């Protein structure tokens, strides 16, 4: 092993995790409430989902590029990378929140109202517990994608394991490319497994 490679690997891996965690945290904080909102306002649903859809179809490198000239959120560096990752993560969480809430049985919703639950109680006691699984699936899908996409963040100075990959590509160094790609893949697998486990645990009743 090349000297210093291991230390740098550790550092970039932690950096990668930090980058993805921060992006996912904001994505969840935006997408879940927004999903709840548009599950109630059907007229907003189509435009919001379409917008999130468009965001996701933009090639990731291009989106990173588009953001650079934008003031405040743009520029070269970490902030831009996180913003782009958040935008990419929105759609699966948004969609699964809406699907989860809308799949609550109409009779259950109606009886909840008939028992005198307030709209807030309907949300927290019935709709969210019954859609927690669907929402978590959305978060898991988004996380796995984000871990992969985050390797491209290095292109605009976002850091993370992509640093190895880009350096490896530039110097035609396969070892270096693998040193970036393999840990990223392992992180994605670990996230998939870990979040899948939480999904099972948190589902309102195991089926």
């Amino acid at each position, binding site marked *: 092993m090349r000297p210093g490679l291991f230390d740098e690997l550790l550092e970039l891996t932690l950096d990668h995790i930090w980058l993805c965690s921060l992006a996912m945290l904001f994505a969840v904080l935006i997408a879940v409430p927004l999903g709840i909102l548009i599950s109630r306002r059907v007229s907003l649903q189509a435009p919001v989902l379409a917008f999130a859809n468009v965001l996701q179809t933009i090639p990731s490198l291009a989106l990173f590029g588009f953001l650079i000239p934008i003031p405040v959120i743009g520029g070269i560096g970490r902030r831009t990378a996180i913003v782009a990752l958040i935008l990419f993560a929105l759609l699966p969480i948004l969609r699964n929140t809406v699907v989860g809430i809308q799949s609550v049985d109409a*009779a*259950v919703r109606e*009886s*909840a*109202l*008939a*028992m*005198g639950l307030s709209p807030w109680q309907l949300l927290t006691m019935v709709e969210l517990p019954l859609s927690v699984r669907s929402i978590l699936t959305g978060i898991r899908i988004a996380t796995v994608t984000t871990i992969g996409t985050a390797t491209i963040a290095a292109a605009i100075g976002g850091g993370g394991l992509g640093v190895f990959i880009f350096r490896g590509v530039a110097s035609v160094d396969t070892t270096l490319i693998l040193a970036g790609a393999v840990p990223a893949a392992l992180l994605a697998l670990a996230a998939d497994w870990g979040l899948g486990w939480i999904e099972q645990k948190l589902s309102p*009743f195991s089926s």
Partner: protein
Amino acid sequence: MTVEYRDVCYRIGDRMILDHLNLRVEEGETLVLLGRSGSGKTTALKMANSLISSTSGTVLVDGKPTTGWDPVRLRRSIGYVIQDVGLFPHYTVQRNVGLVPELEGWPADRIAARTEELLDKVGLDPGLYGPRYPRQLSGGQRQRVGVARALAADPSLLLFDEPFGALDPVTRVELQRQFLELRRTFGKTSLFVTHDVHEALKLGSRIALLSEGRLVQDLPPAEFLKSSHPEARAFLECLN
């Protein structure tokens, strides 16, 4: 509590679901809404607890238009057995039954005692069925839990939408008997929907017959039996 429908219409598109309904349910009375499938029974019932708003006309509960009530207060004082039961799938049977007492902030031991009492009353062993989830019950058992849930917080008005529909004839008769007993002891005002004329005659202090959204008869059971209205006759012919 009293319920009064004043010239109530409900229209979907250009279809009249309820057509100028005028009906008054007095304190302590059991009014049975009888009618064929699609005649508007459920629609009329859901107006009493404001799940549906009328297109025109007024529904008054305790003399006050439902639009003037805080919907949460109104619904907490009304027990409702919904036709499709609608138990919370993520709550156990006992928590489902204790839902309204829980919302009303009863202490835990009082909720537990009340839940046990009610499950017993609807013929479900509280120790055996209390900890189960709704999906672990049969359709008829779920329906009984629905009845228990509606009664839990001692509401002053009861709305029953075919509560005994999915029960075997023996349990059905047993629950009808309990219903009559409940009425005798507590004298609660009830609106009871059914399309079973037997049940209507047995439970109702008055029978209101709906046909295509219109009220065509409104009589005590003894007089209903003698009615000459064709729709009433059609139902009475089912008796033999």
